[in-house]
């Protein structure tokens, strides 16, 4: 399922939609005149956030929905991603030691680390049944 408005889109929480939401945010970023490198960073951050929602908020239930909205404000480009699954507690985050994870044969666990590196500000909010992650890039 896809609902696409000018600056927002709602899709099923499926990895099948990763390419679609990457294309959506890239198009929004291009329309707002962002540089190619910045667009690459935003696409990857949104991919990682969407993947985490599929895995952790919805536990791979593709009947659930994820909404994305983008905007420009005070020399920033922002992407708001909303779900209605299990909330993420940013207080539990610790920076991963990549070398140790590799030694232990562990994959992943680096999505939030990448998001933090790629974006200038990341905000988490839960209200009612909704969770929002807002990714903010300074321009």
């Amino acid at each position, binding site marked *: 399922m896809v609902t696409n408005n000018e600056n927002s889109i709602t899709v099923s929480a499926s990895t099948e939609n990763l390419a679609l939401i990457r294309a959506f945010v890239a198009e929004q970023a291009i329309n707002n005149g962002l540089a190619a490198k910045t667009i690459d960073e935003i696409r990857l951050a949104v991919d990682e956030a969407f*993947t985490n929602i599929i895995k952790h908020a919805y536990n791979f239930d593709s009947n659930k929905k994820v909404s994305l909205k983008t905007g420009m404000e005070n020399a920033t480009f922002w992407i708001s991603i909303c779900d209605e699954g299990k909330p993420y507690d940013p207080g539990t985050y610790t920076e991963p030691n990549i070398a140790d994870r*590799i030694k232990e044969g562990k994959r992943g666990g680096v999505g939030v*680390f990448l998001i933090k590196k790629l974006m200038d500000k990341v905000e988490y909010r839960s209200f009612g049944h909704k969770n929002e992650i807002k990714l903010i890039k300074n321009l």
Partner: protein
Amino acid sequence: MSSFIVNHIQKDGYDILELKGELDAHTASHLEDALKLILDTDRNRIIVNCTSLEYIASAGLGVFMAYIEDVRALGGDIKLTNMTPRVYNVFDLLGFPTLYDILDDVSNAIEQFSSHQ
């Protein structure tokens, strides 16, 4: 939907995986299947040619994270080659250049394997 293809070539005792397209959480299993197929036949000198890899997310990086130690324990390696700057930047963000052999091209990777035999 993300488009991703793995082309597997065996050459002079090496297994070369040519990646094409977008490697994300939807397509990472294709790469994992290709790696498992090589390791199941007790082969461990693997070169991953990234010439046509247009995009990588952490799910793709995770496949390399999961298998590198096993391959090295067997005396082999997974060497990565021909990355575009866009793809290299993602590896670089996670500090992979100090943890993996990332080389200009496949012939460099073969030289590296040969010199460590």
